[in-house]
């Protein structure tokens, strides 16, 4: 069965700063991994097999390259969708609670590979329970494999529990996961695709659903894999850290940006200002996943996130009332292999306005400020001021940009280039939208 990429959500404000960042002509997207016609510019790009309760996907393990912020390319392994070209990370598989999911793994690599589905129960491989693989008494894989050079294996499971999950290689994982054999699986609850779990309080705005998939790369490990050499894991040392398979500033480029043909997933969180007093103005939703080797303390500026679930489990107690155990955080300190589901609302708590409620300071002369490239020239949402001639700006209509980044700050680098790595922004558009 063909799994088609599905446009999950539409955003009212089409133009992204990311386009302006690199090329004014980069309007059409044509990635082998993502269908240009249907991809939303921001937010989660779901790969779905819509209209069935027995969705089926084919993932092909293959080699490819990604671009990194220090202008290098990196040899990778990855799961791609069907016969599509290489992509990193693997497709975001979206299914519904209760679906019987089939994933056919086709292997073009020169060693056996597999897929683990952490958090899924009763996974079958070729129709029988998936099992750790042994050669004699030696564990060779955490699950059934697709043989090297053309082998395949078919996994299936019932997606019983809504939530955010990783899928990743279970074979030689310290190599294969690091090489890029991983992706995200989202199980939507029966209550609806705009709910995180089957709890009414976990409803979110489907136009503001985002993925934050965090990973890392040791270039020497990838070089060794490329030339077929052994790599001593004792020498492992990550030099690059990525968000959704990209470093900053690529991270804020559109989904399917043409200049990132193998890295289809952006991380810009484009949202509208929320009304904290309106109970039907639902929050945004960020699905965090960590496929690295360290805890990653991700820090969204400007608001706290409410952690409502982890590893596919809503944060609820065992009591009859299922006590609410959710908690707010300003540092999402997510461990290796974990997933955290976080809802968030940004609004200006003080409702500053250029006429009726000005900021209670004298705004310094432009000459006395160091002007950021995303700054509008004005403290107010939706207001732009003329910047001194020659000042580069990427601001379009007075929108706000609020950063979100890994706070283990030595990790927001790309092997010598600072202020790259796992950094993205929340973009808040004015209520009137962006006419540009």
């Amino acid at each position, binding site marked *: 069965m063909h799994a088609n990429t599905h446009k999950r959500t539409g955003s009212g404000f089409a133009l992204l700063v990311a386009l302006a960042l*690199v090329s004014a002509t980069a309007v059409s997207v044509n990635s082998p991994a993502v269908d240009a016609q249907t991809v939303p510019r921001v937010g989660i790009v779901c790969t779905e097999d819509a209209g069935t309760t027995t969705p089926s996907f084919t993932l092909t393990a293959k080699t490819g390259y990604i671009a990194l912020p220090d202008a290098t390319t990196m040899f990778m392994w990855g799961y791609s969708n069907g016969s599509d070209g290489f992509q990193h990370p693997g497709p975001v598989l979206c299914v519904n609670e209760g679906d019987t999911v089939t994933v056919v793994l086709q292997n073009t690599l020169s060693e056996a590979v597999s897929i683990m589905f952490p958090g899924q129960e009763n996974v079958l491989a070729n129709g029988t329970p998936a099992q750790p693989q042994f050669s004699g008494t030696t564990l060779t894989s955490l699950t059934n494999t697709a043989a090297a050079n053309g082998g395949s294996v078919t996994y299936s499971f019932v997606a019983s529990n809504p939530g955010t999950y990783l899928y990743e290689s279970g074979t030689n994982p310290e190599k294969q996961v690091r090489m890029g054999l991983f992706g995200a699986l989202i199980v939507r609850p029966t209550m609806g695709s705009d709910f995180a779990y089957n709890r009414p309080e976990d409803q979110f705005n489907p136009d503001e659903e985002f993925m934050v998939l965090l990973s890392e790369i040791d270039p020497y490990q990838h070089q060794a894999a490329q030339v077929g050499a052994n790599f001593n894991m004792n020498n492992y040392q990550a*030099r690059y850290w990525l968000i959704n398979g990209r470093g900053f*500033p690529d991270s*804020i480029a559109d989904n399917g940006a043409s200049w990132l043909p193998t890295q289809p997933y952006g991380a810009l969180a484009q949202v509208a200002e929320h009304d904290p007093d309106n109970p039907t103005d639902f929050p945004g939703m960020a699905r965090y996943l960590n496929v690295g080797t360290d*805890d990653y*303390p991700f820090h969204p500026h*400007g*608001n706290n996130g409410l952690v409502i679930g982890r590893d596919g489990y809503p944060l609820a*107690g065992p009591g009859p009332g299922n*006590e*609410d155990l*959710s*908690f*707010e*955080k*300003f*540092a999402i*300190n997510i461990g290796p292999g974990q997933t955290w589901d976080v809802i968030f609302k*940004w609004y*200006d*708590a*003080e409702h*500053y306005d250029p006429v009726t409620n000005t900021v*209670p*300071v*004298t705004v*310094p*002369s432009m*000459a*006395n*400020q*160091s*002007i*950021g*490239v*995303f*700054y509008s020239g004005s*403290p107010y*949402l939706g207001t732009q001021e003329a*910047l*001194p001639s*020659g*000042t*580069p700006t990427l601001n379009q209509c007075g929108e*706000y*940009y*609020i*950063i979100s980044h890994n*706070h*283990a*700050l*030595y990790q*927001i*680098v790309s*092997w*010598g*280039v*600072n*202020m790259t790595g796992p950094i993205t*922004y929340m973009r808040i558009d004015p209520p009137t939208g962006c006419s540009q």
Partner: protein
Amino acid sequence: MNEKRNLSRREFLKYAGGAVAAAGTITWAGKILLPEAASAQALTPHLYLAGTDGWMYLPPTPQIIRPSSVAGGAPLHPDSAAPDPFTTYIFGFRNITGMSETQKLGQKFKAQHNAPLFWVNQYDEVFNDVDFRVQITNLGLELRPDLFDAHTLHWHGFRNVIPFFDGEPSGSVGIPTGRNFNYIYRPREPGTYMFHCHVEDVEHVQMGMTGLVFVRPLQDGTSVGGFTKFMYNDADTTTPGSTGFDREFAMFLSEVWTDSHWADAHVQLPEWSDYKADFAMLNGRVYPDTLLPNSPINAANSTSWLDVETDANGDLMTNPGLEHLQYNPHSSLVNCNAGERVALRFANLGFKEQAMTLAGIQMRVVGRDATHMRGRDGTDTSYETDTINIGPGESFDVVFTAPSFSGGSGSSGRGYDTYMLYNRNYVGSNNLAPGGFGGQATEVHVYPGTTVPAQQYPNDLGI
């Protein structure tokens, strides 16, 4: 071999053009600078901080020599350029509130670590409280005039703030050398936060422009559960007074990776992915220096920040014999009386996750990331533990009740009982010296009766 290492980040921004310039900020050097606007701030700030560079002290022995590092075999630590008795080049904030212009400018090259501790009251809608205004100036970097870096103040964790007051320089503005900027805060959520400069933050945070700030709850001053001081507004919860305390201590965690400090002092660039915490600090010092007293504090002025006494030139005063700690002014010693409730406010702006353990006393975590431990339905999610696993950028609010005094002259023979508060992530826990104990550690001293007088300000040792 690796060309990247020869390309400074500033050159990189210059060469790479707009796409990468997004990571930094552009200073406009217009032909007309308007001096009146630079300081024409309509409202007097409550707190006035200056960003600059300087030197501080860490234990000078043993030397740290890494042949493969930026120093190419020279000692990274102590830094050969450091004036005695200091060892380590830093960037930092200084409190210049109320200083004359001459005094203020005189604080260039006299940074401290960690930054001045300050606190504010929760904004009061009813009584229309005033905003808290923090003015920042940039005194420049004496040792590195080539780094014409701006500075900002980022109040880490402040909710629903506009970019203008968030201090992230790409989305708003930075403060060039010689200029001022006022940040306005209307703190609506009590709890423990932290602050730092967000310009080139990999570097400026590691170099020391970091500190702790907390927000007192509205409930303070009322009597709930036998307390009048609290970490959160807990009167209408199932456990009123559970966040109340008799004494409070800020515990600010930071780290020094000597490669980066040496590199900044010697016009080099470190390879950040090589990062390790050579020194893990508590309130800017390593054990046992953490036990030494605060620099002289002006208690009367310490109503919203820990006011370290300054001399006629505005420089920091020190205690006799502790001149080496002139720019590490903050103590971490916890003195308390048996049976008292003690609040510890932890915040971590190091780059590594740490494991702060209080041996022999259970701590109750009542808040994390400036959020009272409560579910959306009011479920009490506070918990007891002896270890706080605290990642970079996280904060924890804990309380503990001081155990009864063991009697006599105390278990230590010193008139008090000693409990160790230390980092069980033992990397750096010996200050790199063989044997001994160091790093992110301090002691809790429990005295009998009412030996320790009431606390006048946070981190007041009392005796």
